[in-house]
Structures are given as C-alpha cells and as structure tokens.
C-alpha cells in the first residue's frame, strides 16, 4: 500500500500487456505452466498405479548377477541389491503408495465430515464431546498417531491407510465444524428458514453442499501430507511388507547400499518428492481457483 507508483511520468500513455506466452496459456485454460506440469505428473502416477503392466514388467524378477548396477539401457533406472529392475519396482510401487495417500485422505474426509457436522449441528453435549476428542487426537503429531495405530493393528497396506485416516480425520472434523457453523449462521440459511423450509431440507440443500466444497479443497492439499506419512510408515517397515514394491520401503532398503549405488536411493526418493510436490501444487491451484471464484 505504501509503495509509490513507479510510473508517474508525463510521457504518452502506453497500454500494458501481459507477456504473450502467459496470455496464450491463459486462453487455453492453463494459467501456470508449473501447475500444468504438476497435474500431468500426478496423472501419470495415477495411471501407473491403475495400469502398472502398461509401463513395466516383472518387478520381482531377481537377477543377482546384475545387482546394484547404475542406469543402463536395459535398466534405465538401474537395479537393486537383488538385481530387480528399479523402474519396474517404482511403477508397481505407485499403487500401494497412492492407495495409502489418497485412500486415507478420502476415508479421513468422509469420517471427518460426519464428525464435524455432528459437532456443529448436533446437541451441545455431543458437539463439545466430539471436539474435545478431536483436540486430544490432534495433540499428537500425525506420524506418531499413525505409529500408535499401526502398533495396535499390525503392519500392512490397509492398516497403514487406516492409521493415517485416524491421524488426519480430526483435522478435517475441525474444518467441517467451523465451516458448518459459518454456513448455519449465514444469511442464506436465515433466508431459507424464513421461507419455512424444513430443517432436513436446509441441511441437505444448503448446509452440506457448502461445507463439502472447502472440504474437497482441503483434502486435495492434504494428499501430499498423507503420501509422506504413508511413505514414512513403510520406511519404518510398517507399511506393505516385502517383497511387495513400495517407495518408502525401497528408500529404506537403499540406505544399506548407499556407498555402492547412490542412484538406488535417488529414484524412490525422487518419486516420493515429485508426487507429493505435484499433489500439493495441484491442490493449491485448485484452492486458489475456488477461492478466487468465491471472491468474484
């Protein structure tokens, strides 16, 4: 605000223009190249998770003679300590990694939405109880909470996903409750009451949809967090069990061979980093766009 105009000049008026490339991208609906790249990469990971055999074969084929090689023509990302193809293992590892990341976010979203709506619209006692429980759960760091749940349930893909769900759900519940309280007190709900609509109809038609939209945004942004948490759990050996390929587990195993083959740690680490980054960038872009539209 305090910035002085830098163009107080007496010269003739020249219309300012957006850079040509930016204008061109805007026209086709891709405002930011970084976002486009992130979306493309995340889509690629999703495709790999859905149809791994379309991209690579035989992730479990052992070939001790070729163990711990760097990238070659036959194995573009090299081989691991058992001579398994790293590219194939990365491709087949996409599914469990995403399952834990995206699956737990979805579950947490649904559970958190129900929890938050109950807290906001249920009775005073129920609401207080639900929120104090969320406070208790949120007072533990997410990974610690997930560790606790896995310790009780035992390791494995499904249990890791459940553990992260438990860790994330209270956060969602809190957002949903806050939003539901805002919507319930809003003028348009007041107007709906004034029209004589029944409470159930107001909940379904006005409150729930207006609560869900911000929840979806939060969920997209949270996928990155969940992916990291999932990879962390399997890095600690609590996720999918060997020989199943999974990025966090691959990263953990590569530690023992760092002095022989540094690329072994590089590629799973890069896969996790890039996927988390692309999910977060895409989520934030969605958030900007949603909020931008809200403001207009």
């Amino acid at each position: 605000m305090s910035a002085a105009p830098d163009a107080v000049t007496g010269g003739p008026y020249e219309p300012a223009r957006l850079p040509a490339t930016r204008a061109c991208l805007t026209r086709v609906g891709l405002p930011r190249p970084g976002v486009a790249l992130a979306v493309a990469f995340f889509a690629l990971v999703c495709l790999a998770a859905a149809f791994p055999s379309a991209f690579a074969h035989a992730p479990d084929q052992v070939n001790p003679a070729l163990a711990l090689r760097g990238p070659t023509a036959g194995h573009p990302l090299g081989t691991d300590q058992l001579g398994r193809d790293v590219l194939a293992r990365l491709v087949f590892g996409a599914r469990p990694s995403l399952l834990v990341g995206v699956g737990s976010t979805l579950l947490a979203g649904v559970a958190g939405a129900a929890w938050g709506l109950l807290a906001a619209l249920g009775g005073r006692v129920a609401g207080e109880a639900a929120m104090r429980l969320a406070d208790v759960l949120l007072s533990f760091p997410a990974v610690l909470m997930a560790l606790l749940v896995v310790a009780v349930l035992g390791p494995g893909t499904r249990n890791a996903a459940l553990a992260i769900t438990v860790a994330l759900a209270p956060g969602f519940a809190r957002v949903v409750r806050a939003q539901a309280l805002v919507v319930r007190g809003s003028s348009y709900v007041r107007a709906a009451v004034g029209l004589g609509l029944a409470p159930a109809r107001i909940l379904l038609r006005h409150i729930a949809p207006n609560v869900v939209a911000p929840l979806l945004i939060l969920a997209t942004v949270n996928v990155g967090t969940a992916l990291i948490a999932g990879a962390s759990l399997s890095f600690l050996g609590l996720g999918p069990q060997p020989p199943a390929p999974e990025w966090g587990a691959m990263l953990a195993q590569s530690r023992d061979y760092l002095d022989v083959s540094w690329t072994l740690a590089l590629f799973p680490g890069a896969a996790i980093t890039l996927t988390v980054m692309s999910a977060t960038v895409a989520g934030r872009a969605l958030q900007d766009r949603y909020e931008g539209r809200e403001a207009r």
Partner: protein
Amino acid sequence: MSGDHPSAPLLEVAGLSVAFATRHGVVRAVRDVDLSLRAGECLAVVGESGSGKSVTARALLGLAGAGARVTARTLAFEGRDLRTLGGGQWRRLRGRRIGYVLQDALTSLDPLRRVGLEVAEALEVHGLARRDDLDDQVIRLLTEVGVPDPRVRFLQYPHELSGGLRQRALIASAIAAGPALLVADEPTTALDVTVQAQVLGLLEERRRRGTALLLISHDLAVVARLADQVAVMFAGEVVERGPAAALLSSPAHPYTADLLAAVPGLDDPDAPDATDGPEAPHGPDASDARGGPGGPGGPVRGLPIVRTGPAATTGCPYAPRCALADDRCRSEPPPPVSYGEGGPEGEDHMVRCFHPGRERPAAAFETPVAPVRVKNRAVVSVRGITKRYRSPDGSRRTAVGDVSFDLRAGEALGLVGESGSGKSTTARIVLAEIVPDTGTVLLDGEPWSGLRERDRRSRRSRIQLVDQDPLSSFDPRFTVERVVGEAVPGRMPRRRRRERAAALLGQVGLDPALLDRVPARLSGGQRQRVAIARALAPGPEVLVCDEPVSALDVTVQAQILALLARLRREAGVALLFISHDLGVVRQVCDRVAVMKDGRLVETGAVADVFRAPRAAYTAELLAAVPRIDPGRTAGERPHAAVTLEGHP
C-alpha cells in the same frame, strides 16, 4: 501555510489518467481528469461506485498502487511537480502537506495502538514535535477536533471509541502536521446522520482556517453543504465540473441531473422523481445498462476495458443510460465545453455533453396507478416487546424496550433510528428469528412470536424479509433460477418452477434471461431485485425491508424505492421499512416510528412527523439530514469572505 498568493492554485491537475493492467486487459480507471484547488477551498468529487473518484484521490497522494500506471500533463502541488517524486519524497509530502482521511475509521486505525499514539505518529514521523511535549500536542489536537475527555481517549484503543469519535481521531492524525490539503475519501459514509453532521462541521472548520479540502463522496447532499467546486465523475471521466451553486441549481450534464433527481428529499414526497421515479418498467437497471465495453461481464463494473484499438471507447460513457442520447453521443466522445456564466469569481463551469442543460424527457417516469388502499386490519401487532442482551462486562443492555405498534394491511410503516437504536432487533423479533423476553407479536391476529418453530413454519410464507446485503442471503452455489424457484411454494415440475421464477423476475423489472446467472455476477441493484422477487414468491402479506437500499448508489436506490412503491400497490403487501435514512422513509412510507435507545420516541403519519416532530430527538434527526439547497450557496456565497480571512 504555503505563503502563495491566495488565488494561485494549491493543487493543479491536468490530463490525469490512471490505468491498471488486469488479466482481462487494461482498465482505464481514470481518464483525462483536470482539477484545480486553491487554499481554503473545498472541491467535492462526486460519483457512484466504480466511477474512479477514489482512484483519483489516491493518485494525488501517490498511493495509486504498484500495478497502476499514472500519467498526467500537469500534477502540481504547492508549485512542485508531483510526477517526478520518488518514494521517499512522497512520504515526506504525505501526512505533512497532504492529509488523508479514509472512510472506515475502524480499519484505518491500528487496533493494537492507543489512539494517542496513532495521532502522535504523524507528528513524530515528520519531526514536528519534541518528545516531551508530544502528549500535550496530541491532546491539543484531539481537543481541536472535538473529542471529549481527550486525556481519557488518548489512552483508549480504537474499538473502545464510537464511530464518530474514531473518525475524529483519524481527522486529528490527518491534520496533525498542519497540511495545506486534506483529502477525505467518503469521510461520513458509515456514520449516523447526527454524527455525520458533526464530522462535516469539523471539516468545514478546517476549511475556514485555510486548509484546502478534497472531498470524495457518492452523496451529492453531503457535499452540497461544504463544496465550493463540484466535479462529477462517471466511468473514470469528469463529466461536469463547476462552482457548487451553479452546478447544483442548474446541472448541465444529464448524469448530474439524474443524480440530483435521485437524492431522496425531505420536503417533496409527491414529486414525480420520488416514488414514481426513473424506474424503467422492464429495463435493465442502471449499472447493468451501462453495458458497453465494460458491461456486466467485465472485471470492474462500469469501467471500459481497452481490448482492441480505439473502437472500444467511442462515444459518451453515459450514453447507454442517458435519456437524451442520440447517435452522435454513441459514436464520438463529447469534448469539454463551457456552460452558463460560471461562478461569481469567473470560475469555469465545464461539461462534457453534446446537450448540456437540456430538459430530460419525462417519459421515463412511471405513471402513477391508483392510490394504495390501507385497510384497518392489523397484519402485524407488536405488543410491548422487550429484548435484553448481556454485555461482555456482565451488565444487561436493553436492545428493545417495551415497543408496541401495529402494521395494517397494505400499509408502509417506516422504522427509523440510528445504529444501535434497536430497529434491526425489532425486525428480527417481528420475523420470529429471535424470541422477545417479554411481550408478543401477533400475525393476522394469531399468536406468532410465542409459537414453537415447528408450528410456525407453515405460516412463514406470510412474512418475508428483504435484507441490506442481498448477495449474502443467496446460497453462493445457486443460480438466480434456484434462488427464486426455491421460494415458490408447493411441489411442481422443474419447468413449471422456472416459469414461475421468470414471471417473478418480470414483476420486479428484471430480464428473465438472468435466470441462469449466478447472483455474484449481477449488479447491486439487480441483486436487490432478485431478493425482492424471492420475497414475493410465497405471496406474503408483509415484507420486512431492513435497510434495503442503503448499500446502493443513489440512482439505483431511487429505482428500487420506485419498485417497492409499485409492488406495494400491485401486490398489496404491507411494508415494515427499516432505515436510518429519513429521506428514504419519507418517500416510501405512510407512517413512521422513530426509535432511540431501544424505545419508540414518536409514531405518526409521515407528513405530520416530518413537518412538526413532537419528540426532540426526531427534530434533531431531521435537522442533521444534509440537503441540497443551492439557493443558499448561490445567494450569499459565505465561503468567499472566509477564504480571504485565512490569508490576511
């Protein structure tokens, strides 16, 4: 003071343009504006929202913003060329030679700083006070702007002060350094009329002492009292500029004339411009009709966007809304011309119009229909309602105390009061949104306020609300069709519901093509029409209108009032019309009830109350209303002598 010759202009602006680059192209918010202001003079810049008046003010302060491109042929203040100033030079000028007063005093004051520090800052920054007498200077300043108990206020935080006191504190910090020019952007817009009158008096006092005033306002009546010169802005251009007396008594530009006609007056409720004003029967509302290059789809309402070549900016910007517009107006921009004889000191009266001063055709006015029949049956009976709230400090505050009135079928009852008088609480009790502590409300003679919500629900369609802020009363995901359609009672197929919604839009003067729009993309006037259509949908007997026009520009306000008056005749609904604006109430209502501190101080027929108020408070309210009285200004020119007084 600057020591200049009194007649040399303090501020001289020629060819000022401000443009912003946006995603949608370049928005030229201000185009080719010429202004000049002498010491001790007041120039009022008047225009509706989006007309570029605030951007003009900010450009004069070097605050147009980082994305703005400011160009001018002349931009001089006290003989200095402002175009070449750097950031540091601007900062030394701002606050010291040019003071700036903003509209919203609560957000303009730092909530974490005591008021005294805020005022002291201006003195400190410019090195105008020694530390040991800083406090005394601040207290002197606060006294000067009429803050009572300045030693107490000095140590208080902004939220502990009333709106009027905050505005005074803001003015105190703006004048702390003794600036030669005070720029006030809508300084009284958020204030009650009585407080507004005080703040205007304070500004007048500054001017009398020789400070030049640049007053930005959307309200002609507010500036009429203070201004020596008036510049009327529309769509980024000054369309008319001249001595206040000449401009207000014989406006040359049709837009100025429209603005003047739209100001709700206290004296003349039967004039055709009042209730049956310029409401185009099915025409789009003003801000929409502006259309043209910057139509409703544009990013900034009403501002032309330069997309390709000069074709986008041909013609007079007011032509789409102008009753006098012809082909020439639409094809070439009118150049500035002199009009009339100007001011008594030879000031120029400039207008950009091909038909300056021509009488507007009366065809735009709606012909009055049969007068309203008010029956003697009370649809709403309010009996001794009281509502008390617990304050944060534990004491109980009476929001509404023992209020009783009847609203008869087909009647329009105005509920008037300043903020905090309990009028909105009363409205919410009448709507049965909150339950009174004592007393009852009857609807059609049957219990209403005491019912359980379950039993009330089926009768809610009898009484509907039109709110101040229609946009927030629409579900943000809903289109106009769903907003209005939802209010249509009964089960019916979607097509049938859409037809009903379209018919309702027609009834409030909106194009049914708007059904598929999202309300966020409508203009303020259109939104309020949609809100009225929704309120009419269930076929109510009573419309509760809570400040329905206070957020609208004055020309749009006149249209909405005309619409309410028409609907009252056609649909026979009774209006409970809540407003802080006495002029508006005078236009619309048959009877008026005046509230103060939660109690009714006076009730009576509008004509009687306005002519001969019985309560002292009503008289005070009436006296505080700013009014346009060009005769006074034209006759005696009280400021001429005063200006000289400042420069002996």
